[in-house]
């Protein structure tokens, strides 16, 4: 996939001396959903804000579909829609007027059909004539998305789209993102919910202290760094591990009802076959077995801790 956004050695030092971005380089591929994961203050919002034109970079460059965001800002910005983290809307404005305004601001001719489609897609059509201050928090957030989509951008930046949003709305948001991806929109979202990146991203970038620690295909990342656990439920509880099993990385849990075996999926051998035969040799009868993969969260915490220790 060709890159639609190319970030090259981007630097941002604020006037107070705070260095928010330290040489960030990143290729965003056309049509992908990229999740930027990082703790608070990692530089996620600064990175997005710089690409979108809200913050001036102090070094490096960004190209959007080949257009430099400074020298060719009109063409670059015309391709981008931005959904900010905070709910920032003119409270007295009507929903539909607010969305029309956004389209006009980007220099697009009136297109009521597109506005209707966008509002319907976000379940806002029935509320089109409501004043924004009359809407619930979740609806306001969708108005922000509708505004960002009003000018038919090819790239959509969502800054913490589900921060402080309840579970049901979060799932709704994920469906919206999936729908947009199907329409061919490239989506970059920041989040500190690992669950969110896991659910909707194609690739995950981890950012901490203004640096990109890694950008990788989500599945590859999880496979590469993932540790798997095998949970073995026992027919009869045991009080301690039989001697013959001490060479395996086993842990006795649930008062002796189950064993947890941790192994690395990237290793040449997982050791499961031997474990199972050793178990039967020790006369342990199994009731059930299940495997689980470590989540992105564990991977992420590990990475950030490594970075902090360095």
């Amino acid at each position, binding site marked *: 996939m060709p890159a639609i956004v190319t970030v090259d050695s981007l630097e941002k030092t*604020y*006037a107070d001396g705070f260095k928010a971005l330290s040489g960030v380089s990143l290729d965003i591929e056309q049509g992908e959903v990229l999740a930027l994961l990082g703790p608070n203050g990692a530089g996620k919002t600064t990175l997005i804000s710089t690409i*979108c*034109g*809200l*913050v*001036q970079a102090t070094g490096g460059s960004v190209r959007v579909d080949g257009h430099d965001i400074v020298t060719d*800002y*009109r*063409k670059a*910005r*015309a391709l*981008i829609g*931005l959904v*900010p983290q*905070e709910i*920032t*809307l*003119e*409270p*007295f*404005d009507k929903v539909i*007027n607010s969305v*029309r*305004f*956004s*389209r*006009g*601001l*980007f*220099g*697009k*001719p009136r297109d009521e059909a597109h506005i209707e489609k966008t509002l319907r897609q976000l379940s806002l059509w029935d509320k089109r004539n409501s004043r924004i201050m009359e809407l619930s928090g979740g609806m306001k957030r969708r108005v922000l998305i509708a*505004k960002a989509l009003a000018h038919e951008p090819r790239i959509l930046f969502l800054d913490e789209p589900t921060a402080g949003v309840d579970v049901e709305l979060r799932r709704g948001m994920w469906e919206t993102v999936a729908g947009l991806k199907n329409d061919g929109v490239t989506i970059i979202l920041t989040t500190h919910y690992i669950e969110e990146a896991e659910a909707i991203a194609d690739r995950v970038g981890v950012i901490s202290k203004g640096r990109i620690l890694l950008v990788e295909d989500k599945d590859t990342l999880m496979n590469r760094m993932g540790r798997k656990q095998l949970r073995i439920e026992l027919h009869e509880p045991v009080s301690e591990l039989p001697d013959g099993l001490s060479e395996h990385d086993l842990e006795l849990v649930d008062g002796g009802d189950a064993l947890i075996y941790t192994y690395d999926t990237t290793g040449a051998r997982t050791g499961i076959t031997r474990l199972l035969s050793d178990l039967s040799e020790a006369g342990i009868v199994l009731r059930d077995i299940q495997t689980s993969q470590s989540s992105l969260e564990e991977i992420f915490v590990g990475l950030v801790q490594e970075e902090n220790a360095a």
Partner: protein
Amino acid sequence: MMGLNWRGVAAIYRFEMSRFFRTLLQSFVSPVISTSLYFVVFGAAIGSRIDEVEGVSYGAFIVPGLVMLTVMTQAISNASFGIYFPKFIGTIYELLSAPVNFLEIVLGYVGAAATKSLFIGTVIMVTASLFVDMQVLHPLSMLAFLLLTCVSFALFGFIIGIWAENFEQLQLVPLLIVTPLVFLGGSFYSISMLPPVWQWITMFNPVVYLISGFRWSFYGVADVPIVSSLLAIGLFLGLCLGAVWWIFRSGWRLRP
């Protein structure tokens, strides 16, 4: 001018005007009432005891000054609020991430603020004509002064709105600088009525030139030569334009 994002300009302009219409009562009725009060107090009550000023009845003499007073304060408050409010509630992000340049933003915001103040200025002149006999000797010049004042003070207000970091600051410049300058700028008197020292000091007040030129358009009497009035408003307009250009170039108070 082909390259300008005119739709963007129109979107901002419409948005700003819609706020004006939404608060029509405030925008329209309050200047009418305050002007009427000025006429009752200065025109009828006090004015009836004052002789003609430079051959013009006192009530008629203060009309251009009153119009200027309202137009300037309205242009400043509308434009400063127009750009300050998005900064305050955060909706400015949309403006900064849109493919619009400083000229388009200024055309939208300043154009709308100038339109509103022009509208209110016209309303005041119509209201005034109900109270006093007035004439306009040089209509074209009158229109030019009115327009230039609306635009340049809207620009000035726009700068204040970008500069202001809270609501107090937003009120500070109009209250502490503009209102005194306008009141001491000959809105209600002719400069020639002042003692010589004050006449000299007054010459440093830029508003004197504007009111003088505007009044000349009505009655043909002026405190300063009409050319210097035009130069003064031109200079002020140029300074404001330069400041706005610099603000957007540097990102001052807008783009960290």
